């Protein structure tokens, strides 16, 4: 008898949607705020609705579109009573607008489109409380996606964490811009290869090449002008390629990009030991700056670019990189200028430092080009 049972199970399992997966129960809830209008879409698995309120009216083991449509009022009553939306702590009236169907990896889902009446003013915050299916299946999760303008954030709602407060409103664009600005600053500060490239090019700024040897620069004006040229060239170059890559106009394989970045640091550092380029370091900064831009672009891609606020994110991130860069230069320049006459700077920092940078960058180059891990 048991054997027959198991064989039956196997046959039924085979018939019931070969390509569909089994996973724990999830629902997909999207909430949108656009110009003071709050709306949403809720995908709930037919299996879950069947278990909770029953959909299979004729009991034949299949749920048809007709059976689902017939239960629309019940589904809305059941689901929407387990969702509460408050705008700025005032309750919103939620009402069903439409019923459709969608497929997810584990089967068919009912798609409830609804609207929330939260008053005429654009809400600053939305408080969402979720309790669908928790009484029947504590492993159920509500996967909430909140879209405001072109940004979106996701949360997982569970019996342990059934509520969440969402920030809506106009402040969002500024907040987004600042977010990307901060990311730009952060990523130049942790981008040692970018920093070492820039520093290698700037180490000679407080010196002057005469007859093949380096002497301390006479006046600050010359140094300042030199630093300005190098930093500006680097900035312009990497801004160009960062934008082109972020907008998907050009795309280069990351292994190539990372290797060339490492190479640029080696060459810039070696140039201090055996000067090949002195007056035209700004040109080197520009040329390699183009490649560094691709490196930044991959970071930005990892952060995720909101499709509508692309420019906002790009400008914010780029400005952040420049701010971070400027901070480093502003810290380095006065110090280097003050020390430029001493042997500590000319032998220690300039020579030994450049050699050390070249060595480290050479290791990076080997690691990145041959996909190894030496350090």
């Amino acid at each position: 008898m048991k054997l027959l049972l198991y064989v039956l199970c196997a046959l039924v399992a085979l018939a019931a949607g070969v390509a569909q997966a089994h996973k724990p129960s999830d629902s997909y809830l999207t909430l949108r705020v656009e110009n003071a209008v709050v709306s949403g879409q809720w995908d709930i698995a037919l299996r879950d609705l069947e278990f909770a309120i029953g959909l299979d009216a004729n009991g034949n083991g299949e749920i048809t579109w007709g059976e689902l449509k017939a239960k629309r009022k019940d589904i809305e009553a059941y689901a929407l009573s387990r969702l509460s939306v408050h705008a700025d702590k005032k309750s919103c009236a939620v009402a069903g607008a439409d019923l459709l169907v969608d497929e997810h990896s584990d089967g068919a889902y009912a798609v409830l489109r609804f609207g929330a009446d939260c008053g005429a003013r654009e809400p600053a915050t939305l408080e969402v409380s979720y309790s669908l299916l928790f009484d029947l299946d504590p492993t159920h999760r509500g996967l909430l996606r909140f879209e405001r303008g072109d940004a979106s954030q996701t949360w997982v709602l569970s019996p342990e964490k059934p509520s969440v407060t969402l920030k809506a409103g106009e402040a969002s664009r500024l907040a987004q811009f600042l977010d990307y600005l901060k990311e730009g600053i952060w990523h130049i500060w942790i981008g040692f290869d970018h920093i070492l490239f820039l520093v290698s090019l700037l180490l000679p700024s407080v010196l002057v090449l005469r007859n093949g040897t380096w002497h301390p620069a006479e006046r600050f004006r010359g140094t300042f002008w030199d630093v300005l040229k190098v930093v500006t060239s680097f900035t312009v170059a990497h801004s160009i390629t960062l934008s082109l890559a972020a907008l998907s106009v050009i795309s280069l394989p990351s292994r190539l990009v990372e290797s060339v970045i490492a190479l640029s640091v080696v060459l810039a550092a070696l140039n201090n030991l055996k000067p090949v380029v002195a007056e035209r370091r700004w040109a080197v900064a520009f040329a390699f700056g183009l490649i560094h831009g691709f490196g930044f672009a991959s970071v930005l891609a990892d952060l995720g670019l909101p499709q509508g606020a692309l420019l906002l994110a790009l400008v914010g991130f780029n400005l952040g990189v420049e701010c971070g860069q400027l901070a480093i230069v502003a810290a380095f320049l006065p110090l280097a200028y003050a020390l430029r006459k001493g042997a500590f700077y000319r032998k220690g920092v300039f020579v030994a430092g450049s050699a050390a940078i070249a060595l480290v960058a050479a290791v990076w180059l080997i690691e990145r080009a041959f996909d190894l891990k030496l350090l």
Partner: protein
Amino acid sequence: MALFGAVFAASQLVVAAPFVPRDDAVVLETLPGKPGDPAAVELRRLRAIAATAPNDPEAAATLARRYFDLAMEEGDPRYVGYAEAVLRPWPETAAAPADVLVLHGKLRQYRHDFPAAMADFDLALKADPANFAARAWRAAILMVQADYAAVRRECALLAEHVGELQAVACVAYADATTGNARAAHERLSAALARARASGIDPGVELWIQTRLAEMAWRSGQLAQAERHFRAGLGLGFNDNFILAAYADFLLENDRAAEVMPLLKGWVRSDTLLLRLALAARRLKLAAGDKYARTLGERFADAALRGEKLHLQEEARYLLDLKDDPKAALAAARDNYRTQREPRDALVLIEAALAARDPAAAAPALQWLEASGFESENIRRAATQLKALR
């Protein structure tokens, strides 16, 4: 095979956007279990009983047990959720009945919450020291955690309450993993033969045939292993474990072609889909890419929920199907924190080898030394890894 491919392809064509079906008669979902079938009838009956007797732990436990069995058979985690809900009136405290605590433990271990599961089984044994189910599950979890001394202690306690077959099986399982696969195989085979006289529960036999197959495999007796696998599969159960183990056996012995018919129809199970994808990749079938992509979507779905129940499979997927050694190593290391069975060690060592990071696999190498586990595969990988240092 072609039909399978067509069905699979059709499912991929489904647009990921909501739609309105054209006809009321369109079937949207086929429910698990046709209404007339005995399993569904039984389930409905148990649900009704539990509903009318909400304070009866027996009724709840029976229903929860049925849900759990369904979860194991189908590989469908929703049933675990239903079981948890049914047991909610009897939370995991000393006041709950032993049977309910054992069920809590089984549900916890299904979701890989091993410390909580062990605590549940402990409470069950305090209430009922003769509860051999709790004892056996403790031994099983300790095997996953590779604490073989503790396993043997549990087996000794288990032996006081069960027949010879189960007692021998418990110890043999530990012995086979600590360098005595051949002897363990002989002892367990003999015990199985003796137990046939008084009849064996098919579920128990399935477990034993799977273990015997693994023991024979490890001690190099491949034909014998094949016989055990066939015997287990011949019992007619749906069982993820034996299917996965046999698929691994076939893959390791260059018989990937046999994996396809074996696992046909099991795409819905993540663990078996992995083996299908590996075999299809090995055989350079077009389906290999589709399977791999589906697997990626499954893992992404799980990540959305913030769950990591299939890290071993994900590590294997990242290593052998996505060719991403660094990500595979990260997943394998994360996995090894809670699960230390031989397969977990193998994927960690192989990922560390591919990512050229021997230090990362140190715990697995230590386990290999300490346990004396017999496997050409793992030992070879470990030797190569150590040579990297």
